């Protein structure tokens, strides 16, 4: 559940919601830009980025499961191990770094 400040920050980073959600890439620091490109490339192999962005924005997955730091790595490991994910451990770490940064920004 987001507080007022978190909601405000989420609104700055993300526009819209659900299937129409989009991320304002200008708020992403330069050192994380490659991570964003990686996320866009790898995550979209299996699912729409709206699922990832929505979970980051709201702190829950679309099915209602909490999307917090402890669970994010576990979810990342599942994606890493999923057949056909075409993702390396190093790539997963970069994606997790970005997701955790976004979550921290939103919940500040």
């Amino acid at each position, binding site marked *: *559940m987001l507080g007022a400040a978190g909601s405000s920050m989420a609104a700055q980073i993300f526009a819209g*919601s*659900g299937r129409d959600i989009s991320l304002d890439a200008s708020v992403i620091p330069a050192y994380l830009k490659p991570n964003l490109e990686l996320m866009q490339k790898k995550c979209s*192999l*299996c*699912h*729409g980025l709206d*699922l990832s962005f*929505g979970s980051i924005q*709201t*702190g*829950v*997955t*679309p*099915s*209602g*499961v*909490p999307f917090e730091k402890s*669970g994010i*790595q*576990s*979810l990342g*490991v*599942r994606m*890493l*191990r*999923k*057949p*056909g994910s*075409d993702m390396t*451990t190093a790539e*997963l*770490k970069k994606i*997790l770094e970005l997701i955790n940064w976004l979550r921290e920004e939103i919940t500040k």
Partner: protein
Amino acid sequence: MKKTIKKSKKGAVVAVMGALLFPSFMISKAYAIPAFSRMYQKECATCHTMYPERNEYGEAFEKNGYYPPEGVSKAATRTAGSPNVIDPLGAVGIPSQVPVSFWGQADITNNKNNPAQNNRPQLNLDGGTSLDLMAGGNFLGKVGYWADYDLAGNQVGEVFLQLMKPIPGIPVNIKIGKFEPKTSLWKSNNNAMIADFGHLATNVDRNPTTGEPNFTLDTQQNGVELNGVLLPRLFFATGITNGLHKKTNGKDWYGHISTKIGGADFKGVEPEMDLDKTSFVDFLSLTIGGYGYIGSSNDSNNHFYRTGIDAELNWKQAKLKIGGVYGHDNNPSVVDSAGVADPLADQLAANSKMGMVQGEYLLNPSLLTSLRYEIEDVEHQNVARRIIPSVVYSPVQNVKLILEYVSENTSEAAGTKIRNDQANFRVSFAL
């Protein structure tokens, strides 16, 4: 449901039955449904390598009564404003969207040398068409449900409820209705190919009137089953059914137990992984299962048992499945498709051995290749060996194009050998 080449000592009968039943390879019931995608806002790939074959999470989801094994926070979801259909109408658990899905399939077959067709190629653009209606889900995490209907065949498929751990403190679910008894690790169609697992569809005993199998392991039956994840890596199931083709009140019994080493456990919990130091073992998992089935058929005159063991090895994009079944029938009825008893085999006790090895490799999320070898050896009848290579292309997750080749050699007890080859092409979609 018929899935395999039938057995007889007579070449002509084998040929006729082969012609009749080869197309039955094309028929498959569905177990993966977009209703789950809509309900939980997930992609098909969440639960499937390539539908209907489930991945580790899909297995955990199924074992948890079609409910996310990690649980669902309804309050959080409502606050987030997610288009959440788990959010029930009141306390009755009726989903706000009707969880219905359709599964359509159409086949083209080319039978290269079926003796019944004078060994001439037979390109059939109407190799079979099916449309299934399915519904599934879970009421408030307390009761899983499933129902499917074959619209083309006008047949009710599986219809059951599964009470989730109704007794507090005891991790046992109760499944009641019509379903495929849990024996093997896999349902007969739990793969992305066209051909179902033949070793689960082997028949020894036949209905004297129709020539249809009196019993196969994968037949859907009405019954009651207890199942559950006793430990995170230990699953069991046991149940009773009415059985098939009985004249007495005797019931059939079955039991299954399986365990898993490596990978996510049966509750869907991922293994601990140090992302700074991974090894090939982090991507390796082995599931082993054993089962038994005891029953009777042939108007209760044939008492039989089956016992089997399965193993599934996963490593990244590669998968290896191995399954074997041993059986004994003490008084099977062996008849041809016209219901004529085979004098050489009818009423003789018969041991049977069935086995399967299947390797799969997912080249990318859209392209799967596989190769299967099957053998069915029924005493006094014949031995069938099949080699089945296939390629599955999925341009989007709910659409598949499958090209498959089935090469079958049947050796009769009298020494005659019959070969039957068939190429199959299927288009399939789920919505």
